[in-house]
């Protein structure tokens, strides 16, 4: 090195060059090479002996890549919910962690509203979680797009589990083209809940009393609603009817079908659907038992404040009271009113899946099973005080049937004839269908268009999408 001093300009030039080099390095794709000791793919011959009803011994060849037992694996698990759910959720993971000491589980819980957006963008970015909770309405679309590992081979190779462990009526939510991609996680029928104090003060039978007499119909709903509305005191019978979870059952229980059998035509442009929307519009403008249109943000607040007598929801009664309703006790579930088909109850089931971008298929499958199996359900009951039975084992256990939110629901979710709450089709993303029916029902709720025009527009737009998807 010479005795030449580093001038100010030279120094600044060097710093700029270093900064430019740093910026370039930061912009280049991270190519991380890891040396991973992986066992060679193992071909196993597994003889699965089925219980009595299945006498065929099946030989299943399973080819899987396993991480060595000592290598630490951190599985990310994405689910929607709130911080209040974490305690129960991580308790369900504990037995899995004991069985697989080299595994860690990193939960990614997020708000419900943007859950689908976040998961899809993570898939697009190649950073999808290992295990993902899938909402019922997204399941057909996501599973059809190949976001989840098919579970049939894994289940068939598993001596400790079988697809019959889960309620048959719930499997369609996790099945596409006959292939199982997820395990049912929770099941819940759509119900209504009412404020017992307001209902007692109204002077008419409560919805539950009407139901037990077999008189809970759409006509008696109107009678009950009028009796429970005091507009001068800002008290209304219902709120947030604009949510499709509430008006769609009205159509279904009157025989309305969303699609024809082969899902080539949307049938919303028909009597039961027009009647359902007309019914809601009449509740607002003819009988005035609904407040002016309000967003669902206010629903829980209005119910807790005693401003509305009833609302629709899912029967997570103890949880609902404890968490969503701030411990509010004057809540009693009842069924959606019976239409011409009788008390047809609609239900849905979320599921969990192993993502195709998982780092370890088998370990992720084991975690999925731990979250969705009977053991996980029982832990949830012990820790959180509620259970959503999706497994046959817990479903048939009298002790857990009694604890399952409301035992009368059991008969509905076990019977597929009662119908699925969300229109299940893999041909059009649910979000796109929802955008369409929201667009037109929003206009119907403010009487910008008639119910008939609303249904005709929904059917027309969805049929256009069906044609494009064909």
């Amino acid at each position, binding site marked *: 090195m010479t005795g030449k001093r580093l001038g100010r300009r030279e120094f600044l030039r060097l710093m700029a060059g270093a900064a430019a080099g740093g910026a370039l390095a930061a912009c280049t794709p991270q190519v991380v090479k890891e040396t991973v000791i992986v066992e060679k793919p193992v071909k196993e011959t597994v003889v699965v002996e089925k219980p009595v009803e299945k006498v065929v011994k099946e030989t299943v060849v399973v080819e899987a890549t396993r991480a060595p037992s000592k290598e630490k694996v951190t599985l990310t698990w994405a689910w929607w919910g709130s911080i209040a759910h974490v305690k129960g959720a991580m308790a369900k993971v504990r037995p899995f962690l004991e069985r697989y000491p080299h595994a860690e589980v990193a939960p990614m819980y997020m708000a419900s509203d943007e859950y689908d957006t976040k998961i899809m963008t993570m898939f697009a970015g190649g950073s999808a979680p290992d295990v993902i909770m899938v909402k019922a309405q997204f399941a057909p679309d996501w599973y059809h797009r190949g976001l989840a590992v098919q579970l049939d081979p894994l289940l068939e190779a598993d001596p400790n589990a079988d697809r019959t462990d889960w309620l048959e009526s719930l499997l369609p939510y996790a099945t596409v083209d006959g292939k199982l991609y997820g395990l049912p996680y929770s099941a819940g029928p759509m119900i209504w809940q009412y404020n017992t104090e307001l209902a007692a003060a109204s002077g008419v039978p409560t919805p539950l009393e009407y139901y037990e007499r077999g008189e809970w119909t759409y006509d008696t709903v109107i009678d009950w609603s009028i009796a429970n509305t005091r507009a001068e005191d800002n008290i209304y019978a219902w709120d947030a009817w604009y949510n499709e979870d509430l008006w769609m059952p009205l159509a279904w229980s009157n025989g309305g079908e969303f699609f024809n059998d082969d899902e080539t035509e949307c049938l919303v442009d028909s009597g039961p659907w027009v009647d359902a929307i007309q019914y809601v519009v009449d509740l607002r403008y003819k009988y005035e038992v609904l407040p002016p249109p*309000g*967003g669902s943000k206010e629903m829980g607040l209005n119910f807790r404040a005693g401003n509305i007598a009833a609302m629709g929801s899912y029967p997570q009664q103890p949880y609902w009271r404890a968490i969503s309703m701030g411990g509010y006790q004057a809540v009693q579930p009842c069924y959606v009113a019976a239409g011409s088909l009788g008390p047809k109850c609609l239900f849905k089931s979320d599921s969990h899946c192993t993502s195709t971008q998982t780092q370890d298929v088998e370990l992720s499958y084991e975690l999925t099973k731990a979250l969705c199996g009977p053991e996980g359900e029982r832990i949830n009951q012990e820790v959180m005080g509620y259970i959503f039975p999706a497994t046959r084992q817990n479903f048939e256990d009298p002790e857990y049937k009694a604890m399952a939110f409301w035992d009368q629901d059991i008969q509905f979710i076990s019977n597929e004839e009662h119908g699925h709450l969300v229109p299940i089709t893999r041909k059009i993303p649910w979000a796109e269908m929802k955008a369409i029916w929201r667009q037109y029902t929003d206009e119907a709720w403010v009487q910008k268009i008639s119910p008939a025009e609303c249904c005709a527009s929904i059917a027309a737009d969805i049929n256009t999408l069906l044609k494009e998807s064909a």
Partner: protein
Amino acid sequence: MLFQLPEGLAEAVNPREDLSYEYTLFGKGHTKVLKRSRIRKREYASALLFLAPWIIGFVVFEIGPLLASGTISFFKWDLIGDPRWAGLANYEELFTRDALFWQSFKVTTIYSLSSIPLRLALALLVALLMNQKVPGIAAFRTIFYMPSVVSGVVMAMIWFWVFNSRFGILNHFLGLMGIDGPNWLMDTKWVMPAFVVMSLWSIGAPMITFLAGLQGVPQELYDAASVDGAGRWRVFWSVTWPLLTPVVFFNLVTGVISSFQTFTASYVMTEGGPANSTLFYVLYLYRNAFKVFRMGKACAMAWILFVLVLVLTTLMFKSSPLWVFYETEVEGRR
């Protein structure tokens, strides 16, 4: 081909004796290219080196995505699967078959036409007040500016409750005056006025620029006007306003650009309702991109917005000689 100019000519063309120039002639056009000296070359190299981090970031994070979105707008792509070539189908669908596209454009235009003049007028009025020499004026300036530093989501949630028809303070105060307040956010007639009122809360940024402009008006002009006996309105119209027009122009351009990008308030407060009466353009773009995953259509919307804002900005710049007065101009305002 290099050659030396005759000495006298070289000196006439190149007055700087410390620099030497070499000239080349290329082809029939006799294009002369000056080959700069070593010092000038080094200076350019240093400048580029210092600018490199920004240039790299700009290219990678701005130009790259810009070009990518332009390309994607000609495809149908759902973010997960393979993009499919669609040509102009996305644009055609937007212009001819998508009623919500025109609804979102209408909502955004109405909002812009309503809120921009009101915001500018109110910001100017407040700036005139803040330009007074009274004790504690700095505190008042801070108070008026503070809403501008509140995040959009927080602001939206605050106003969501202010406008609540049953529990909101606005209807409460209206009730005290005997007025039955409307259901601001759920009534198609009142929701847009509610959004415009909300936009007036965050006038801090234009207010500050107006204040800076006001304080840049030379005092001697006011003194001269006072000597000539001009009243307050005359002083404002003949002295203050002309010198403030550059700031007005700046605030107008930035106001138009930002109003066409309104998103947060409608996303948080109304989700585009009721009945799509607050379905702003960018909200609809977001829905297409991240709710129904129609990336091609969303990118087409983004480019349409870009062209629209570019056209509007160009028109404003073209109109500026008619009404914007710069002190450095030789000719005054017409």
